[in-house]
């Protein structure tokens, strides 16, 4: 019996899906190389024993080229060979390229089980593989699987229980690719077919003209779908729930508490013209849940539904090619669009995803751009909720300003940051259509993650703020910074509380601005300041961890200087 099971394979072959099947631990999987940038660990129970299973980021060979790949290879090398069992997950529809790593693993003397994943997709693509012959040539067990449905996983477990012996001294020679060519020749048969619609669309998306056209359609439809789903959920589900079902309960509570006093202030908040107002009362049981559930959650669901769809189909890497040129001007390359897009959901996974970029310089630039110019869903939902009533012009304006900030910051950083930015080198996956269950479970996983992260912070934030308000503790700070806030940004001094709360969570911060009845211009400036200045605590910590102290301080300086400058320019220069 071995001690550790490593899942290793090329990027985007489905290692994470196999991992989930083996351990029952759910992790995010998508259809683009580089989804897994951290290690996923889980346990497989066999009889009395618990075996550690480690899902490694994808690698093309045992000589790593990015930080994520480095992590994968060094972790494998750390473990003594006689304690490691390697499950080499292989994309059956692209056997040839995948075998390069397989041969390296076998040559290095690891105990290898080859998991021939996505075998079900082979017949659609007219590929047939002689599994027994392949196992014979390689000298290791080969198991055809389809991890998304669970086919073949039992057999993999059987081989983990009874690991094969190492085939000693198997050397495939210096010309590995030539050898692979011979193996492919003898085990793989292709039946010729006409090009399918899927293949036509795959090709069209990587040609200039048709590619840009397709991307315009995809981006437009995605925006529309997010708005449609988000607004629909609010209008038909969440708002009716809060107004029809929840309001009477809270009203009863408010009466029971005598409509005043510390507890009432804490739980229900202030009465607005004698009534409870979910948007303005600022109570622990009124505004806090309303912000999270009726304003933010619907957009979280809508955004992640659309993102998951695009991820699983495999469209995102195609966007990377189209945007490569522009992103080069910002010191990045096309792949950086993926972390940026993830950042629109929440900055934390966005910053983590920059690990798939090759150089430190790129990771720094991308992380700064995400934290300064990419508003997360909670913030965006609040921008829509608050500014929307003044018209689409203001909402679009926020995005426009943030876009300009990204372009400006990127151009500056590209000139001022030392180091090199490598070129794009990315595999474009085929389009795949994942089973609906997989999409739904990924969506639930992300929503649960959001709620677990957000709810405690929101409740704690509102609680602390309410106590502070009650004891008038903010008065000193607001008085101190009043010249800055009033003079420079044209905001009432009370708005400072909101801006400071932005450090905890952006949605709560905007919530703090709601009762202030700000003008459109003031809200516009406040939301831009919230988006650009300090990221929320969670992204702050991740940024620090990922960049290290020196770069982190640089990043924070850039953010502070730029947000104050932009805020002042907007207030004094443009929106007079």
């Amino acid at each position, binding site marked *: 019996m071995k001690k550790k099971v490593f899942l290793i394979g090329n990027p985007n072959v489905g290692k994470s899906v196999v991992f989930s099947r083996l351990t029952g631990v759910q992790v995010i999987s998508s259809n683009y190389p580089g989804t897994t940038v951290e290690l996923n660990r889980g346990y497989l129970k066999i009889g009395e024993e618990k075996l550690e299973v480690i899902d490694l980021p994808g690698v093309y060979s045992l000589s790593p080229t990015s930080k994520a790949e480095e992590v994968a290879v060094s972790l494998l090398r750390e473990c003594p060979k006689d304690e490691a069992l390697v499950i080499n997950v292989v994309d059956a529809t692209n056997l040839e390229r995948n075998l*390069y790593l397989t041969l390296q693993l076998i040559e290095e003397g690891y105990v290898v089980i080859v998991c021939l994943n996505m075998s079900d997709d082979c017949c659609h693509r007219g590929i047939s593989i002689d599994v027994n012959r392949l196992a014979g040539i390689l000298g290791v067990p080969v198991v055809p699987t389809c991890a998304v449905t669970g086919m073949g996983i039992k057999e993999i477990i059987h081989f983990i229980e009874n690991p094969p012996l190492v085939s000693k001294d198997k050397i495939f020679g210096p010309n590995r690719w030539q050898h692979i060519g011979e193996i492919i020749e003898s085990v793989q048969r292709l039946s010729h077919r006409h090009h399918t619609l899927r293949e036509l669309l795959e090709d069209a998306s990587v040609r200039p003209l048709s590619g840009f056209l397709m991307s315009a359609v995809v981006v437009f439809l995605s925006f529309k779908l997010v708005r449609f789903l988000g607004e629909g959920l609010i209008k038909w589900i969440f708002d009716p729930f809060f107004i029809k079902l929840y309001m009477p309960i809270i009203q009863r509570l408010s009466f029971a508490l005598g409509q005043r006093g510390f507890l009432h202030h804490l739980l229900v908040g202030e009465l607005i013209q004698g009534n409870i107002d979910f948007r303005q009362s600022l109570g622990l049981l009124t505004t806090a849940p309303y912000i999270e559930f009726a304003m933010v959650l619907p957009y979280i669901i809508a955004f992640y539904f659309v993102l998951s769809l695009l991820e699983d189909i495999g469209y995102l890497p195609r966007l990377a090619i189209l945007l490569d040129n522009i992103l080069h001007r910002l010191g990045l390359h096309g792949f950086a669009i993926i972390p940026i897009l993830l950042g629109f959901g929440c900055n934390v996974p966005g910053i983590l995803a920059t690990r798939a970029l090759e150089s430190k310089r790129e990771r720094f630039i991308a992380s700064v751009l995400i934290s300064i110019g990419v508003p997360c869903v909670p913030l965006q939902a609040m921008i829509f909720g608050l500014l929307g009533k003044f018209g689409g012009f203001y909402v679009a304006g926020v995005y426009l300003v943030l876009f300009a900030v990204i372009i400006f910051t990127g151009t500056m950083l590209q000139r001022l940051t030392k180091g090199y930015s490598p070129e794009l080198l990315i*595999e474009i996956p085929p389009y795949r259509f994942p089973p609906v269950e997989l999409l739904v479970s990924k969506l639930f996983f992300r929503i649960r993650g959001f709620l677990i992260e957000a709810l405690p912070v929101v409740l704690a934030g509102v609680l602390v703020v309410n106590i502070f308000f009650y004891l008038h503790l903010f008065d000193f700070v607001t008085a101190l910074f009043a010249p800055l806030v009033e003079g420079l940004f044209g905001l009432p001094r009370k708005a400072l509380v909101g801006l400071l709360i932005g450090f905890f969570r952006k949605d709560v911060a905007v919530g703090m601005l709601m009762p202030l009845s700000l003008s459109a211009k003031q809200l516009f400036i406040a939301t831009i300041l919230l988006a650009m200045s300090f990221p929320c605590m969670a992204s702050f910590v991740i940024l620090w961890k990922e960049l290290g102290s020196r770069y982190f301080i640089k990043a924070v300086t850039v953010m502070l200087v730029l947000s104050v400058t932009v805020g002042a320019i907007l207030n004094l220069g443009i929106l007079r």
Partner: protein
Amino acid sequence: MRRIPLSKLTSGKKAKVVEILGGGGLQARLMGLGIYVGREITKISNFALRGPVTVKVGRTTLALGYGMAAKIIVETE
């Protein structure tokens, strides 16, 4: 037979890699992805203004930066 960089190859044409200029790092990276001397590849497209080049290698579709494509020398009829 003409030797030209991959970046200059006409889209849709097949060609054989004959040389990879540049350091061992690039060679190793491309090797892992299946681009090596002697390999036949098909160019799918390239983008204007020194944009990326897309190629098909076996069953893999790859996008590579212009500079990288300029370092891959191919031979074509």
